[in-house]
């Protein structure tokens, strides 16, 4: 232990790296996100709660906690988390079970939150962080065996447990997809093989297709309806197509240069819950194509920094943590923008760092703290 600590100190003296680029993008996106959140939510907040800063205040508090958590994580050696990985994973899964207890909260018809006294927390976000840490830990332990299908399937089962719980208990399809995606991407990067993953995708596609067929023919559930809406939102304007259609109106009416910050009309209750999943549409409406492309460019840059940090990480565990966060954030960005532009069927995914949502903010900040913590350990080769 002492030897280890000395080693660290030595490294610190010789090479002190910190990814300020990433930190800058994070701060910039958060600042931008708060401005857009205020712009998007002030009117509806005023109407609903009598205070235009209702959402903004809550978001700022979440970010303050988030920043505290992030800095804490930056300065804590991330290897510590290896020791707790299993417990973190189990703990995060237990938090999902709490939803079933009287502490569970139902909002907008879905039971996905737990009440912790000072506010509500969405366990799905906890599971995402828990899975990233736990999977990084497992991969670190079993990297040699990842070549084997057996080990791959075993690790995939851990992922599927989390996915299944989120999907079944909180019936939250979008979070389940993201968690599945995170796990899949981490295992894909960790393994030297490609074939397993191609098969998985093929099998997944087949299962998905079968699932939809059953939904349509046997259950006649609303999920299949989403597909009809997706293909022709204007025909379903009165039912499921309303949100998508309003989103398209917002994006389309922005044009190239936008209506100017604060001038969106779609945010005045037309786009439902615009401050959540649909905030990107208001960015489009107010800041135009230029603003929208700039936001995507920022995310591309951020993802790029993740890739650099992952590829230069001092060890497999650190690299896998970064890959997990990379997968999480990139998937959410892609899915969010794809949904609001009606490129894929509607499913609720928030835009990281910009959408309103305390739990999401807090845990993404934790993840970013981990990434920055990893970046601190990067050694230059002399």
């Amino acid at each position, binding site marked *: 232990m002492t030897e280890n600590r000395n080693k660290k100190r030595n490294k610190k003296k010789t090479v002190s790296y910190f990814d300020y680029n990433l930190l800058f993008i994070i701060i910039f996106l958060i600042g931008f996100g708060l401005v857009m959140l205020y712009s998007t939510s002030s*009117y509806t907040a005023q*109407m609903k709660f009598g205070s235009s800063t209702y959402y903004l205040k809550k978001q700022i508090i979440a970010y303050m906690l988030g920043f505290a958590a992030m800095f804490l994580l930056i300065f804590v050696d991330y290897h510590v988390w290896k020791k707790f990985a299993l417990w973190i994973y189990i703990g995060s899964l237990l938090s999902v079970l709490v939803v079933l207890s009287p502490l569970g909260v139902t909002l907008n018809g879905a039971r996905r939150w737990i009440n912790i006294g000072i506010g509500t927390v969405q366990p799905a976000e906890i599971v995402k962080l828990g899975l990233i840490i736990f999977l990084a830990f497992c991969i*670190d332990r079993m*990297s040699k065996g990842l070549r084997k299908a057996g080990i791959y399937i075993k690790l995939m089962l851990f992922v599927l447990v989390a996915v299944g719980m989120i999907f079944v208990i909180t019936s939250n399809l979008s979070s389940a997809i993201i968690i599945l995606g995170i796990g899949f*991407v981490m295992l*894909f*990067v*960790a*393994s*030297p093989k490609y074939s397993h993953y191609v098969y998985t995708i093929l099998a997944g596609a087949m299962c998905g297709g079968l699932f939809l067929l059953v939904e349509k023919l046997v259950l006649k559930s609303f999920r299949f309806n989403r597909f009809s809406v997706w293909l022709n939102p204007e025909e379903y304007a009165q039912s499921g197509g309303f949100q998508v259609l309003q989103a*398209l*109106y*917002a*994006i*389309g*009416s*922005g*044009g*190239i240069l936008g209506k100017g910050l604060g001038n969106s*009309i*779609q945010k*005045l*209750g*037309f786009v439902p819950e615009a401050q959540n999943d649909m905030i990107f549409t208001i960015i*489009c409406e107010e800041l*135009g*194509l230029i603003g*929208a*492309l700039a936001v*995507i460019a920022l*995310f*591309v840059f951020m*993802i*790029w920094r*993740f*890739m650099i940090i*992952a*590829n230069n*990480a*001092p*060890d*497999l*565990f650190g*690299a896998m943590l970064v*890959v997990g966060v*990379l*997968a999480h954030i*990139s998937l959410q*960005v*892609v899915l969010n*923008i*794809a949904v609001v*532009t009606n*490129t894929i069927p509607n499913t609720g995914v928030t835009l990281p760092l910009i959408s309103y949502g305390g739990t999401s903010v807090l845990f993404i900040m934790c993840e970013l703290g981990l990434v920055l913590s990893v970046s601190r350990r990067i050694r230059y080769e002399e």
Partner: protein
Amino acid sequence: MLTFKTYNRKKTVVYTGIIIVLLAFLMVRLVYIMVFESEYLGKKADEIHERERYIKAARGDITDINGNIIATNKTVCTISVIHSQIDDPEKVISVLSEKLSMDRDKIKELVEKVSAREKIKSNCPKEIGDEIREYNLSGVKVDEDYKRYYPYDEMASKVLGFTGADNQGIIGLEVQYEKYLKGKDGYILTETDAGGIELENVAEKRIESVKGNTLRTSIDINIQMYAQQAAEKVYTMKKARYVSIIMMNVNNGEIMAMTNVPEYNLNSPYELTDDLKQKGGKEQDMLNKMWRNQCINDTYEPGSTFKVITATAGLETGAVTLNDTFSCPGYKIVEDRRIRCHKTTGHGSETFVQATMNSCNPVFIEVGLRIGVDNFYEYLKKLGILSKTGVDLPGEASAIIHKKENVGQVELATMSFGQSFQITPLQLLRAVSAVINGGKLVTPHFAVSASDCEGKSVKDFQYKEISGVIKEETVNNMRYVLEKVVSEGGGKNGIVEGYDIGGKTATSQKLPRNSGKYISSFIGFAPASDPEVIAICIIDEPEGVYYGGTIAAPVIKELYENVLPYLNIDKSD
């Protein structure tokens, strides 16, 4: 310690690459939506944001031939309360009940009702609305609106018609000329949030309303009033079912007056007139009856006035000349029927002129039979009996008349003196006009021109005229004969001091023949030698004396005594 191997790095790059490709694709999609579909989607978005508030256009006025306004608009107020904005309900209740002279409890109930907006009273005079507005009560809204207003109440009610709740024409000229009268609504476009609340600080688009065109009609209020008074007088005196008078410019078809007494008050068209109220019946049926324009919407058996047509056809076809002599034994046998003359003892020997003055049925039967079915129908057609007149009022009735192929000797005989078929009074007026105006079949009409609110002409209405339907010689003969009817024959009561009047009387028995109900009528024109005006009076079911010459001719006489000098028609030498 395990490290990130080259293949790990490669795969991280592969994944990041895939994500960047996906994001690039989404960027392209955004370009497509925000550049190429922007216009369409933006318009769609505007549609849901914008709310149009209409500015109701004022309806165009209707004037008489001299520009006197006979239908216009009045500003009225609608008083309503918005429950959520009321902060002093007691005061609101007391002010409203006092100003609107409405029951306090009823207002209280409306004020206390939890609703978005509750209408207290509509159509209340502007002055009262202004007074209420003065109080500046929060939660009380005073909205101005236009209401159609007819300054002369009952005058020409069945011609003008009235408008409905949305100021749209319902019957009469109001509906016939809706296109010209209605004007163009303006609107204020405001942007709203999803709840429909108007946004402040957003420039509103305002498009002003345009008042409807002013419709100038051929009615002359003075003549109309004379006609109405004359009709009312005989209506009361003879306790008739109704009395109609039409007066028309004989040369161009402009109708100067058209009245059907009893008229109703255009400012309260849904209130039954007193005599209708007494009769009772289903409200809607009664209203329809009240609004009916008998001159146009109803048909009747013209009787002897129709002999004008028979005489014309006879002279035209050469079936008879003025000096042909006939003998009337008091009846005429046609096939197996014995058709009686009104003078059962017979008129004895008489010329055609005398027979017309006597209104002798057997002579006209003889003339009719001489004319023959084909020629008779030819002239019915030429004189417009077989078609509608084309008058610019809705709901004109067609003649009810035998099909030509079904007309035998008996039918022809009865038609010759105006029985066994029905026409509208206006059809008869138009046919007789053609006979005496030189053979021109005109289209009776009211609308003369339409002009916009600045007085600029928008439309001069043109009507169909067919010239030369009757020979000049026949025209002169008919003027002569009909003048004789008035000056020496059955129309003596139609003589107007100082004027030559031509005309014909009729007394038609209503069906069934033994009902004892009659329609008395007189059709007269002036001056007889060169007619300018023609008028018809129809008295439906008079009590007591029912001869057209006795009761209908004096009505036209009275009308002419007032109107001919007013129109500066030259007196005869």
